[in-house]
């Protein structure tokens, strides 16, 4: 074998490399920028991501193995790549005025967002468990730093520390799972796992490895009982980073779950072992996530619990192990990215300098001082609560119908009941905005052009996916067909 053999097919990784190189360019460019030309960071980032988006969509087609079967680019990864790049673009738009307001070093900030995005993309194209681990580490290490980027804020540092400890802890468990699977089967290739598993017996060692993988990824997705880091980390991190974390790493972790458990461990004998575990996790997550969100006084913290609850809804579809379930997860991730990034963008604007204004009382009378902002927030609250005609409704509809189709009636019922509970705390935000008088300091807020663009895109996305859900779902179904 000659030395260049491992480079064969690297062309398929052009989108990943574009994002990575854009990050490096920003990091270098930032050194030469003055205070006034600092906006070039955002411009370069957006141009690079837009280019990467086009390149990613062009990779659509037959699966191609890269790096000697370590990575794969197929329709499944292409769907996720497009989603991740979209999340990164929206995050950049949201952050433009935020980094200026909070005096955060924008070069590092954008570079880290792009590095994390590269990590997401490699998670979606991992064809080997070791590759998956490396990709998860790339995204995790970048997000640890992002969470602590507000170095003067003790809350931000505390969030970064908690995220780091629990993230590294879960990575170690995940890695131990990989080592154990390796010990049970003799290799770590996800694409070959299925074949090896189907013919052999399910050994206790393999079961142990699989359990460790579930715990490791459970931490990353933040399903109950592995969710305890989420409220503090989401609460303390700079809010645009919270938004990024709620959309990106979650979608990446679901991509990893689909790859490992649908493509790798999808065989009948294995699925019988893990499906009941996933069902219990999904049920617990929906119940606890929604009930804890009820008791919050800070909207930022409420959205953190809401993000746990949404992971629970998407988790329901994992139990089904069919194409509709997998497609509904892909759909849900895009829908949640729009709703969550939009809602967090409103929070970013209302929080003002220093992020002191996250309490429900800070939203009182928002409808009379900032009617458009309040209307937009209302739409996102409806979407997160799962009311039609929004993306949130269509997402939940697909997830729960997949569950019913596979006979998981109890999960679907828990899902619907907890959605009803969730309406209370989402409507509470709307009630405060419309029914209460503005408090002191309730004045019209200037919204920057970038944030306006972001709100426009997320509002349109949320409505489009709610009114015409079919087109995205068909795309998702097409993308997951290779997993089975």
């Amino acid at each position: 074998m000659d030395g260049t053999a491992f480079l064969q097919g690297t062309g398929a990784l052009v989108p990943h490399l574009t994002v990575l190189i854009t990050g490096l360019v920003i990091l270098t460019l930032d050194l030469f920028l003055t205070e006034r030309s600092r906006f070039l960071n955002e411009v370069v980032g957006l141009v690079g991501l837009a280019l990467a988006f086009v390149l990613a969509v062009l990779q659509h087609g037959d699966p191609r193995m890269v790096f000697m079967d370590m990575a794969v680019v197929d329709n499944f990864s292409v769907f996720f790549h497009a989603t991740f790049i979209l999340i990164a673009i929206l995050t950049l738009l949201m952050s433009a005025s935020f980094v200026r307001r909070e005096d955060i070093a924008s070069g590092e900030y954008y570079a880290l967002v792009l590095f994390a995005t590269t990590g997401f993309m490699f998670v979606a194209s991992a064809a080997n468990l070791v590759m998956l681990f490396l990709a998860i580490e790339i995204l995790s290490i970048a997000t640890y730093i992002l969470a602590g980027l507000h170095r003067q804020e003790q809350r931000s540092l505390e969030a970064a520390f908690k995220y780091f400890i629990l993230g590294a802890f879960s990575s170690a468990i995940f890695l131990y799972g990989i080592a154990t699977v390796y010990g049970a089967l003799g290799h770590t290739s996800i694409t070959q796992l299925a074949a090896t598993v189907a013919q052999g017996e399910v050994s206790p060692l393999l079961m142990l490895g699989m359990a460790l993988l579930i715990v490791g990824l459970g931490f990353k997705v933040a399903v109950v009982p592995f969710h305890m880091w989420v409220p503090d980390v989401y609460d303390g991190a700079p809010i645009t980073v919270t938004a990024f974390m709620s959309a990106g790493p979650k979608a990446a972790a679901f991509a990893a779950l689909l790859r490992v458990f649908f493509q790798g461990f999808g065989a009948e004998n294995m699925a019988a072992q893990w499906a009941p575990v996933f069902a219990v996790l999904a049920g617990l997550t929906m119940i606890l996530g929604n009930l804890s969100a009820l008791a919050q006084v800070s909207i930022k913290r409420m959205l953190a619990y809401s993000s746990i609850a949404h992971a629970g809804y998407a988790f329901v579809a994992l139990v089904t192990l069919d194409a509709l379930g997998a497609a509904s997860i892909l759909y849900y991730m895009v829908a949640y990215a729009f709703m969550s990034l939009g809602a967090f963008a409103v929070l970013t604007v209302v929080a003002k300098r220093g992020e002191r204004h996250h309490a429900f009382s800070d939203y009182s009378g928002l409808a009379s001082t900032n009617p458009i902002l309040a209307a937009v927030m209302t739409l996102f609250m409806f979407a997160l609560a799962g009311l039609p005609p929004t993306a949130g409704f269509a997402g939940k509809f697909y997830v729960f119908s997949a569950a019913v189709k596979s006979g998981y009636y109890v999960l679907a019922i828990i899902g619907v009941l907890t959605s009803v509970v969730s309406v209370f705390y989402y409507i509470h935000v709307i009630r405060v905005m419309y029914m209460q008088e503005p408090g002191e300091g309730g004045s019209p807020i200037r919204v920057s052009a970038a944030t306006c663009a972001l709100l426009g895109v997320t509002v349109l996305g949320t409505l489009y996916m709610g009114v015409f859900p079919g087109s995205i779902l068909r795309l998702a179904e097409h993308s997951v067909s290779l997993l089975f």
Partner: protein
Amino acid sequence: MIPISYYLWVSALLFVTGAIGVLLRRNALVILMSLELMLNAVNLSFVAYARMFNDMGGHVFVFLNITVAAAEAAVGLAIILAIYRTKETVDVDHLSLMQH
């Protein structure tokens, strides 16, 4: 020759020791060391299995893991240092700004 299973038991023991350290110790630096212990315990398993299968892959993974562990330690130490600068302590019991 020492049987492979001995290495695996030692690895499991080290991993559990590290996990207990992360959960019980209150000093941030000791927690970081415990995390490193967990990662290195896994490396030991990788090497042991690689030896069992006569497969070079497992050995290569260890090098990748060492790189990741180094990057993680660097970021972890940086975060702990930043906390020490503002709080003058690395005791995790003092990190409780957000307990509602």
